[in-house]
């Protein structure tokens, strides 16, 4: 463990990390797209325009290979990129393609598929949305029932997907479908890219407990998908799930830590304003959150250090998601309590504190321990994959990996 600043071996000799940071910051602030439009379609156009600006100037895809328009940055620079991007408060990527589908395409796609799909995705010209979960296949994804029947050089897809974010904006839905028998579980799953505008695709917003629709349901009714839109082999889709580009998860941890650092600072400021910090019970809780938000950051740093030194993250990186979701639930619940009766006003009330963000966060973070694998499934996975505890003999083999 040394105390000097890390100099990464992949650095471009012509520019120091600080110079890179400065250049990036200048670009992001200089080209900031301004206030977010209220009208949804204007907002979509505004976001697409920003992503195109970013791409055209060579500032998109920090981890992506240059051949697909990315920056192919060293890991240390990716971290700098994420930090500056978060600070600049510019719009993020559209849809969920970049984090999930792109790594899969890069790793498993044909040359033709990569050429065709990657650049438009990165530039924001096509928006991608995930279609994995189904009403009967949540934690148990291998139980999915959406079928794809081969007819010549097409698949005919039928079924329903749920909990799809950005599906209402999507041009392409990347999805898992069943091509094997109903009992085939992981062995009968195929990875397909489905044109969201194709006949038979219906996307419906799904109102969640916050009252908003952050997710959609997708219905496929005899949707015809060319075989060329299959990634990997037929019945070979399962291993493609959750491919990630090496270091991106660690950078994501740092991102989350930075975001919650800001959120906690705002909560502490609010506590001061409302003179709540005079209460030792409040102080003790806030200090506990301070401990945890800092640990979140240190774990991110430790993961990065491990990756750089050993090429792979240690066990801490696998527990950090559970650490974070517990933190965010606890934080919002405490915030609501701290605000007392004002805390339980809805966000449309003029008396609501900070437009009800805390109570909204309390509601929203109910999903933290449910989405993308419940906290229970995460604990199972940690126990089995990291600690090597034996499988439950009554579970089907090969549970979804994290």
């Amino acid at each position, binding site marked *: 463990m040394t105390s000097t600043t890390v100099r990464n071996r992949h650095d471009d000799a012509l520019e120091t990390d600080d110079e890179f940071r400065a250049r990036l910051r200048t670009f992001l602030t200089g080209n900031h797209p301004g206030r977010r439009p209220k009208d949804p379609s204007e907002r979509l156009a505004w976001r697409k325009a920003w992503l195109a600006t970013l791409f055209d100037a060579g500032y998109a895809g920090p981890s992506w290979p240059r051949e697909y328009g990315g920056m192919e940055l060293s890991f240390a620079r990716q971290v700098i990129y994420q930090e500056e991007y978060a600070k600049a408060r510019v719009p993020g990527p559209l849809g969920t393609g970049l984090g999930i589908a792109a790594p899969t395409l890069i790793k498993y796609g044909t040359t033709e598929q990569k050429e065709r799909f990657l650049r438009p995705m990165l530039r924001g010209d096509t928006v991608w949305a995930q279609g994995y*979960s189904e*009403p*009967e296949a*949540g*934690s*148990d994804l291998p*139980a999915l029932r959406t079928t794809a029947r081969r007819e010549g050089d097409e698949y005919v897809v039928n079924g329903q997907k*749920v*909990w799809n974010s950005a599906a209402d904006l999507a041009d392409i839905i990347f999805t898992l479908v069943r091509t094997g028998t109903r009992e085939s579980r992981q062995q009968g799953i195929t990875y397909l890219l489905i044109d969201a505008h194709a006949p038979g695709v219906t996307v419906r917003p*799904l*109102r*969640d*407990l916050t*009252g908003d629709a952050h997710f959609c349901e997708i219905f496929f009714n005899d949707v015809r998908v060319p075989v060329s839109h299959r990634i990997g082999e037929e019945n070979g889709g399962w291993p493609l799930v959750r491919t990630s580009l090496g270091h991106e998860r660690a950078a994501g941890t740092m991102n989350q830590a930075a975001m919650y650092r800001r959120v906690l600072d705002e909560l502490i400021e609010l506590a001061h304003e409302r003179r709540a910090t005079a209460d030792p*019970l409040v102080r003790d809780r806030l200090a506990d959150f301070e401990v945890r938000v800092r640990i979140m950051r240190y774990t991110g740093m430790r993961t990065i250090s491990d990756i750089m030194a050993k090429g792979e993250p240690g066990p801490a990186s696998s527990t950090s998601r559970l650490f974070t979701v517990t933190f965010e639930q606890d934080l919002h619940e405490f915030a*609501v*309590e701290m*605000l*007392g*009766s*004002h*805390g*339980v*006003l*809805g*966000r*449309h*009330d003029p*008396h*609501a504190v900070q437009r009800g963000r805390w*109570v909204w966060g*309390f*509601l929203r973070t*109910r*999903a933290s*321990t*449910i*989405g993308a694998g*419940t*906290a*229970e499934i995460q*604990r199972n996975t940690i126990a089995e994959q990291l600690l090597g505890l034996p499988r439950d003999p*009554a*579970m*089907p083999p090969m*549970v979804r990996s994290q």
Partner: protein
Amino acid sequence: MTLTFTEEQEELRASLRRFLTDKSPSEAVRRWMEAEEGHDPALWRQMAEQLGLQGIALPEEYGGAGGGPVELGIVLEEMGRALLPSPFFATVALAGQALAASGDDAAKSRWLPGIAAGSLTATVAIAEESGSWRLEDVAATATTAPGGGWTVSGTKMFVIDGHTAGLLLVVARTGAGPGLFAVESDAAGMTRTRLDALDPTRRLGRIDLDGTPAVRVGPDGGADAAPAFLREALDLAVVALAAEQVGGAQACLDTAVEYAKIRVQFDRPIGSFQAIKHKCADMLLAVEAARSATYHAASVAAEGSAELPVAAALAGAYCSEACTHAAKENIQIHGGIGYTWEHDAHLYLKRAKSSEQLFGAPAAHRARLADLVGI
């Protein structure tokens, strides 16, 4: 003291459960929580006319059934279970009990018969913009009017059904301390606004009073001393709320258990997994403990025992947390479906989290308990 129910009380519970299952299923709850009225006026009349619920805990001489906190607790437990949107809590548990405890015969004669008959809705206004529920923190003022009587000025917040109630019992400060003042819905100088509450099944209002004519309520008529019945009325409200919370928590447990029996993941009902079993067992433990605290508090209240403040603080501290815990676990056990708007799980969570703050948060109840028992 025994903590079980008489046959009549059990029958009251059973008939009310049938009534609410029939008249206030989920669809009705959702329809009325989104309606302007916030509740079903026809149901309100039926409750009064067929079941006499509004008068259940009121003296017979004012048209009530002569029951007490135990009977009221049964009714609220069932209403909490059904998540009934209704002015019942404000009218009966808050205003009705406050009037009945006031020792003010004139006030009782004037308003209790209307409450018992279901023709008058009412509420009590305590908290203000500070959000505190402590009587000592009340800032609204009452002053004697030149022509006799009183006027009240100030702003009241988080008043349950405050924007619709036919009668407002406002806690306001006189020179000698807080007192209770009755303001009728058409009184001059009053502005009422509905707040956007987290809980769509219980309306909250803001009331601005500016020299609004009022009638003082209390055993001493116009005398200027802080009346003890106000504290008692607040304790009775806390006990009533605890009963409602027990009902809500039980509903969450029941729903979670039912779902865990039928939801299949990994080729097994999820209720066969230890993680789900243990969550359900812990919910049952919390629900049963909350029940003990609540039945005890109701029984103490029925006896008119001096133990009421302790019993109420205890029930307030425990039941709020138990109910929120059950509501959160219910969502977690339901997974994705529990996160949807269509499933009722979130309505129970919103009710639970909001109720936690009514009349003081759990930590405030614990602090009061500590004072009372000499910790």
